[in-house]
């Protein structure tokens, strides 16, 4: 009888301990969960209040009607989205895509060799070059653009130098055209394009290039077959970091384009300020956001890392 009672007592003790342990574990996990919730709360509240709610409001507004004197009439309509397909706006979208594509291609072409040089020099020098690359970003973009106005003017520094050297007789129109806009855009986005490319080139195993050379491939073939495919994620990250903000960036177009070239960003800005057509501006913003999301989705599907985009 005694062993049975002892066994039962032991089992009960075990059970008791078991429950105590589980309860302790539950308490611990609850505490951990609570602390993680508390830690995440500020960011979550911030994101909901200042990202999700405004985007939701924008989406809601894009389906509303424009009233007289720029007021919003709360009546559902799809006209704002249909209006985007009018020839005038299609031209603006086409032009902004063209400028964005040119800017992206030229930025990548200019930035890739620079990223390669930075990745292949000594660590100390690469650090210095990276800092030097990022340093002009500390200066206000507006001031930089005014400097470009001074340089590219008809009587500006570049034209004066070219004329005094006798290369040109009349000043060339460097300002207030697409050329000036593209130059300004390249300037603004070059550092952002170089950094992801530099990071992917730096990660590249030099042994692979050596192996390619040992197998008889020339420098061009090695670059096309080994370097380029392995650094493709970095290039694609650079493309996204240049192309996406380029479409919506209206400051450069406003200051260096001089009203001759208009991009989607300018159109949105004007809808909200001058035209006071908030629903149409909201519809344009939603379409722009959709294009951006689509590009990021393609990037992640191709195996791109969101960390490289600063996510």
């Amino acid at each position, binding site marked *: 009888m005694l062993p049975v009672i002892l066994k039962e007592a032991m089992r009960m003790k075990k059970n008791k301990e078991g429950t105590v342990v589980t309860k302790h574990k539950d308490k611990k996990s609850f505490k951990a969960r609570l602390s993680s919730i508390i830690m995440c709360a500020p960011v979550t509240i911030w994101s909901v209040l200042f990202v999700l709610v405004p985007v939701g409001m924008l989406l809601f507004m894009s389906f509303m009607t424009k009233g007289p004197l720029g007021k919003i009439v709360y009546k559902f309509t799809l006209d704002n989205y249909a209006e985007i397909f009018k020839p005038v706006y299609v031209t603006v979208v086409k032009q902004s895509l063209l400028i964005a594509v040119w800017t992206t291609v030229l930025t990548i072409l*200019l930035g890739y*060799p*620079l990223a*390669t*040089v930075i990745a292949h020099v000594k660590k100390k020098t690469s650090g210095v*070059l990276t800092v*030097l*690359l990022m340093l*002009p970003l500390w*200066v206000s973009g507006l*001031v*930089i653009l*005014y*400097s*470009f*106005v*001074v*340089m590219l*003017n008809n*009587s*500006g*520094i570049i034209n*004066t130098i070219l004329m005094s050297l006798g290369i040109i007789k009349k000043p060339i129109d460097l300002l207030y055209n697409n050329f000036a806009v593209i130059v300004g855009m390249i*300037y603004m986005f*070059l*550092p952002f394009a170089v950094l992801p490319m530099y990071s992917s080139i730096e990660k590249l195993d030099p042994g692979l290039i050596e192996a390619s050379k040992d197998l008889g491939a020339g420098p061009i073939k090695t670059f096309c077959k080994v370097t380029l495919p392995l650094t493709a994620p970095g290039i694609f990250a650079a493309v996204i970091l240049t192309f996406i903000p380029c479409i919506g960036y209206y400051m450069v177009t406003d200051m260096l384009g001089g009203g001759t070239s208009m991009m989607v960003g300018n159109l949105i800005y004007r809808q909200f300020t001058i035209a006071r057509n908030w629903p149409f501006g909201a519809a344009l913003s939603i379409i722009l956001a959709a294009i951006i999301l689509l590009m990021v989705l393609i990037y992640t599907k191709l195996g791109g890392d969101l960390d490289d985009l600063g996510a």
Partner: protein
Amino acid sequence: MEKRKKKKRVMSILGKVYVVLLFLFIYAPVFVMIAFSFNDSHCQCSVVGIYNKILCETV
């Protein structure tokens, strides 16, 4: 072997020149901004004040 070394040296010089040119492009607006901060003219292009004095003295 020597040809390869020569090629490598030329490439490294070209790389350096390219980096210098690109950094000149990046820093040109900053330098212009600094230079014009000492200019006495209200116009964007005419050079008055300290630069005018320097130009007059050199001429």
